[in-house]
């Protein structure tokens, strides 16, 4: 099985709305050792001028992951999940995600490149609120390892 080159520029359906929850942000923050009070303490976040708790920088992976599942499970993609390794990850933020945000994510395949028997699939997932405000763009490069000789 090999990656279908026609995947390039494919845009997937927006994910169903995801509501950023306060306890989820606390739980995720604890899991990534993000101890800044704005991730845990409502009064601190509000004193800093945010409406609610601030999600730590890599929290958007939870939402982006739903788009990567669309890509990996797409029957025409030709991506063997057991051969996928995460190569690169990037987030570009207009602002942090805040508790209460209701967001959807839309993935586009932006690059497919073969390198030494492996295929690198780069995709960009734009995360915006259900009222259309862009919040963060998450870009992943997945390395699909080639067949062993």
């Amino acid at each position: 099985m090999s990656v279908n080159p026609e995947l390039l520029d494919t845009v997937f359906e927006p994910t169903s709305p995801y509501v950023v929850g306060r306890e989820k942000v606390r739980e995720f923050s604890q899991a990534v050792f993000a101890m800044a009070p704005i991730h845990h303490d409502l009064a601190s976040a509000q004193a800093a001028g945010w409406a609610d708790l601030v999600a730590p920088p890599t929290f958007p992976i939870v939402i982006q992951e739903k788009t990567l599942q669309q890509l990996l499970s797409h029957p025409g993609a030709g991506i063997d999940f057991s051969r996928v390794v995460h190569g690169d990850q990037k987030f570009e933020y207009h602002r942090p995600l805040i508790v209460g945000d209701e967001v959807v994510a839309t993935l586009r395949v932006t690059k497919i490149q073969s390198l030494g028997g492996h295929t690198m699939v780069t995709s960009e997932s734009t995360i915006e609120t259900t009222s259309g405000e862009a919040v963060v763009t998450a870009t992943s490069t997945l390395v699909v390892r080639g067949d062993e000789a």
Partner: protein
Amino acid sequence: MVSLWDGFEVGDVVAEGSIALTRDSLVRYAGASGDFNPIHYRDDFATSVGLDGVLAHGMLTMGLAVGPVTQWLGDRGFVSSYQVRFTKPVYVLASGSVAVSVSATLSKIDDPSEGSATLALSVSVGEGTTVLGKSFVVVSPR
């Protein structure tokens, strides 16, 4: 306005820290993130797919590596861009812990009037084995 970067020169360490990862940390991250790939908690599964053992989620390493920067930054700004390359696995044994060391260095002031700047992250385990490459955090004031 006082710049975030007053008193810092390019090349200076802005923030640093060290986190001890245990197998429990990986299980906790699996639950919090929803990434339940068994290579992150089951030794038998990890070795069956050719790994040397259970390894930390790359996104856990990426997540914890930005902590010293956000802690230092407090409410004076926010992270406007963050990128890494996953270059080496972080193996975590069933018992004991592995220390992940992070150092954030001022790389360049992107926009002196606005005050945004790029920090380069150095992230390593054990005796200095680098596990993330091309790791940059852009910080913007607010």
